[in-house]
């Protein structure tokens, strides 16, 4: 496997504070209603505890990105480091990528009438910095790694509540949320 940068999401550490999503918004100033990173609460049927658990998701920068495959004007490219970049100037706003991505990563900008999505802050990465979301996370729940070489024991690709797509092979990896410890009174 070639070099492939991917987000590592530690749901055990994530407290659902949305700082990552806000940091993204602060850097890129997306239109109202458009988010490139979203923090999804896990439903009770997956995590039935009083304490909540969250999935912080942006573009997965898939190994085989369906957005790139289905874009009729080749507005998407995949860099050597695996980051999938969208060229908004080339986009004609057909919405094909928006419909195709099962993770909802590309969004239609209603003002520009073009699609847009998370670029993993490749300009920051090229400058040796972390993406804005990773940089801002107060609990260290987000990080990036080259998943082709990193040791990822204990990390999973498809946690509960995350659509499985083996053909796309999304690059995000997750650490499952910790199960709360049950404290019972000793009747004896």
């Amino acid at each position, binding site marked *: 496997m070639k070099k492939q940068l991917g987000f590592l999401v530690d749901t055990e550490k994530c407290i659902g504070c949305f700082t990552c999503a806000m940091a993204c918004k602060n850097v890129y100033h997306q239109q109202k209603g458009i988010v490139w990173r979203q923090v999804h*609460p896990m*439903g009770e049927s*997956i995590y039935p505890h009083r304490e909540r658990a969250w999935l912080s998701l942006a573009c997965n920068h898939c190994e085989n990105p369906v957005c790139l495959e289905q874009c*009729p*004007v080749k507005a998407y490219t995949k860099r050597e480091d695996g980051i999938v970049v969208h060229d908004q100037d080339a986009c004609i706003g057909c919405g094909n990528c928006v*419909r195709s991505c*099962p*993770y909802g990563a590309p969004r239609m900008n209603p003002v520009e009438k073009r699609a847009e999505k998370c670029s993993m802050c490749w300009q920051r990465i090229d400058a040796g910095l972390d993406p804005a979301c990773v940089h801002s996370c107060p609990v260290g729940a987000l990080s990036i790694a080259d998943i082709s070489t990193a040791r990822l024991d204990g990390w999973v690709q498809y946690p509960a*509540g995350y*659509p499985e797509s083996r053909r796309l092979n999304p690059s995000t990896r997750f650490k499952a949320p910790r199960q709360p410890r049950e404290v019972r009174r000793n009747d004896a």
Partner: protein
Amino acid sequence: MNSMELPLVIFTVLSQGAVGLVALTAARQWASDGGSGMAQAPRTAWLTAVALLALGAFAAMFHLGHMGGAVRTLANLESAWLSREGLALGATGALLLAGYLSPGLRARGATTVAAVLGVTAVLVTSMTYAPAGFPALNNALPGVFFLLTAAVLGPALAAPFLPDAHQPAAMRALRAALLVSLVINLVVPCVWLSGGTVMRLTGEAFLTAPLYWLRLALLGASYALARGGRMPAWMLPLLAAQELLGRALFFMLPVHASVNIGNPF
């Protein structure tokens, strides 16, 4: 609920109607005994098909955020179904236009080639609308729906151009297409209910939508009224209305996989 995508509704229904017109005309040419005036497909039929394709393509332009880039949609033929769709429909339109201008290209063999190319274009179009983001549609169903639209609208569009001897056959073809469409459109949402969570949500969205039942009622009424040996003049508007409604629901009601993130799939 998604956007109705009205430009795509108009584009897909009109282009599939044009293909249905060509396919039915080709079928009648093969069925004719040579004495029923079908040695060549009627020139006006080909003009109608070209006009429907052109009107559909024009409507599709309004779906794009930037119409000026429409010509660039052919840039990714190696992997994008939308690029292939443009090529397939463009080739079909060019062949029909050539047929309109040249009588030799409306003979039985050439008409069959146009029909096969048109049906291929419909199937290619269906791949564009079977995206991975919609589990309920990421399969062969868009192809089935689109071919049924061609089969339903084809006889009604072709009937005015067919000789009297072929009118009963057009009515039989319409009744068969309507019956199959009725059954498929009734069964598919029920099948979705047995799928994964997102597919089930799509099935529920259809079965609880009054417009879905209105569409089925129009489909049933069309079937009940499609009697006799000749196509009534009001049949085409009725069929077009139910097909346009059905296509609008096709774009509006399916649930995107990302809607359910955080919950079981």
